[in-house]
């Protein structure tokens, strides 16, 4: 049971470059999320998706683009990386219609450094 896999685990990129973080889940969960984690801010929602081809902005979407052509994949793209986007990025998923708020299943995160 692979669950949610994120790749790469670590990435260093230069300012201005485009970079894509990958997220793949094996459970066919409808909902997927991207968060960034920064010291003093906890985790903040960047984008989320309710199903294939349905995405919406979260709290901090500027500078990011997402797509979801298939249920199992939810890549996050930084179109032109900036130093302020240096962070740890987490992908997560949850089941559609799941009453009870059992929270999310998280990937292991990607540490991105923009130099």
């Amino acid at each position: 049971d692979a669950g949610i896999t994120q790749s790469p685990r670590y990435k260093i990129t230069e300012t201005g470059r485009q970079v894509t973080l990958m997220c793949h889940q094996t459970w066919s969960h409808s909902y997927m999320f991207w968060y960034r984690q920064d010291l003093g801010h906890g985790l903040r929602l960047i984008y989320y998706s309710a199903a294939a081809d349905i995405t919406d902005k979260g709290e901090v979407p500027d500078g990011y683009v997402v797509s979801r052509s298939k249920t199992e994949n939810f890549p996050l793209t930084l179109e032109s990386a900036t130093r302020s986007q240096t962070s740890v990025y987490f992908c997560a998923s949850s089941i559609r219609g799941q009453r009870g708020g059992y929270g999310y299943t998280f990937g292991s995160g990607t540490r991105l450094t923009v130099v």
Partner: protein
Amino acid sequence: AQTVTQSQPEMSVQEAETVTLSCTYDTSENNYYLFWYKQPPSRQMILVIRQEAYKQQNATENRFSVNFQKAAKSFSLKISDSQLGDTAMYFCAFMKHKTSGSRLTFGEGTQLTVNP
């Protein structure tokens, strides 16, 4: 919009002792869920405990328990018999009561260190 506040950036406790982590939140919702997540150095996010707001009884999971005060909008985590493996960042989180894909709102986190 919901907000979650953890006022203790860092805490430490001696092994085998008890420690309480604080969390307050602000919401106009009546039904919702609250969570504590643990993030050890491995970076993995691990669900520790969850509380349903419409349940008055405080949730417990082995050595972990919560003190849920709905009127005060407070949701503290008590760790009993602390172990070295409890050393981690702990996040409090809020979720609206919905049947579909509610978003989690996190606090800033509390770094807990358990000393031998």
